[in-house]
């Protein structure tokens, strides 16, 4: 059971590190965007093509990147966390 406790703590740390990393990614993405809005209004107003400015493009990218981070985490957790949870729960059941 000591092994299980260790495995659980390893898993908990792995999840915690991923959660912190992805939260930081979101902070960088969104606050990067906000600070550009605050400090570089002209830059964001620069047109790329008619009807599209740098700002609109980056804003849409924030939405797309938010989706990407969500998708990444769900795939990561489905692949790396669920199996381990199943294994630990089965061991716990088997030990009884």
């Amino acid at each position, binding site marked *: 059971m000591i092994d299980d*406790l260790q495995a*659980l*703590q390893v*898993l*908990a740390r792995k*999840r*915690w590190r*991923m*959660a912190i990393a*992805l*939260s930081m990614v*979101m*902070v960088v*993405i*969104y*606050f990067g*965007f*906000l*600070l550009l*809005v*605050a*400090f570089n*209004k*002209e830059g*964001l*107003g620069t*047109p790329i*093509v*008619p*009807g*599209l*400015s740098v*700002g*609109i493009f980056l*804003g*849409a990218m*924030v*939405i797309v990147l*938010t*989706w990407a*981070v*969500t*998708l990444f*985490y*769900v795939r990561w*957790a*489905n692949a790396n966390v*669920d199996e381990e*949870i199943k294994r*630990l*729960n089965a061991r*716990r*059941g088997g030990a*009884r």
Partner: protein
Amino acid sequence: MSAPMTAVGEPNVTAITFFFLFVALTVGITYWAARRTKSTEEFFAAGRVISGRQNGFALAGDYMSAASFLGIAGLVSLSGFDGLIYSTGWLVGWPVVLVLIAEPLRNLGKYTFADVVSYRMRQTPVRIAAALGTLAVVVFYLIAQMVGAGNLIRLMFGLSYDMAVGIVGAVMLIYVIFGGMIATTWVQIIKACLLLGGALLMAILVLAQFDMNPLHLFAAAQAKYGDAVLAPGKLISNPWEAVSLGLALMFGTAGLPHILMRFYTVPDAQAARQSVFWATGLIGFFYLLTFVLGFGAMVLVGRDVITGVDVGGNMAAPLLAEAIGGKGLLGFIAAVAFATILAVVAGLTLSGAAALSHDLWVSVVRKGHADHVEQLRVARVATVLLGIVAVLLGIVFKGQNVAFMVGLAFAVAASGNFPALVLSIFWRKSTTNGMVACIVVGTVTSLLLIYLSPTIQVDMLGKAHAWFPLRNPALITIPLAFVVGIVVSLAKPEADALAAYDGKERRMILGVVED
């Protein structure tokens, strides 16, 4: 193109028909749900049988309020780019909910987020503090929705304000009292489909006039109102203000009681995870649509017509519906907006009722010794009380700025509830005193600083100066709540809470397995 004549504000037969269809359908579902609501597990958590995808739609339904539909479309129609600041801010909170909150919450709690914060702690103090944090958020959010409902319905259907508020309160109470979370969940799912469907239909009709290319639409707006519509405008002038607003938007979502409560309706943590994935996809898509609708209204309706009907621009989307689809589409969109408010109010009321009955009555007053019949009865009484309070507040706060109230709710949620959740879930040394101090300080200081902010002191009370310079307090109050929570916890360690951490961590990761 921009005809000064509009049917907005007149009683609209299509709107009334669609609204009655919606109410008939949802009351039918409530009848079905009522027969399945026999225990508190069903009343507060829909028996935990909602699938991840269903819960994703319901989360989106809970989150996409009329404020975002009408408010963001209006903001975009009047200032273009600036609308993106809000819509991105409201979306980026979701990955935070996903990676930090959703799964631990599902595994550790029963009905409320207080279950999670109080998990290793002494129940009474933490429950009282968390119920306080919950009710503060619920009340401000309810005021925003009720005031929005009153204005919207007056403008759209020509009904009186008080009557509109009364109707929302009465129909919502039918859902929640009889159908509990089962009915509320399905109302949210139907509403999410209607709102997304309606917004998508409108976006397609708008884009059809611009070769199905959003860039042609934006270019038309540029030609009509100048390059400024595609660049940042007046919304963000002070970088500190920008960061403070951003913090409240980003971390507020993870502290909204009615959103957190939804994670208890799914069977396990995996389903909780899938549900955020669906919700993020749907909400992001919805914000992209509102952006198109805002620009559509700017070009096809015109700013002067929009501000002529409502200075805040809140009627941009309905006016656009009328411009592209006539009275029929206007009626449909009006009914969808009404349904939207109804659904959000139902979700809020249910989460407030859970705090009152599960946290305060069952856990604090009865120390956990209340049978199912009593719990269910108290839950329904709490629901009725909150419904009455919501209607009264809606009438008292008539004329208040809706966006401001929503901002307030997010600031309190981000400063009071979110830090306590994170510390209690992930930090071994957190203690009862620490969590109580964290919630109380976060909630009280954010309320106090909002009172001292230019929004209240200068805009509402007409003073020359405000003591606190920022309109949004989150920049100060979120770090403050974390620091207070940590310092108070370290000042007096709690052996029981420390010892219980390993067991809590096991349950947080593995879920509830009998052992």
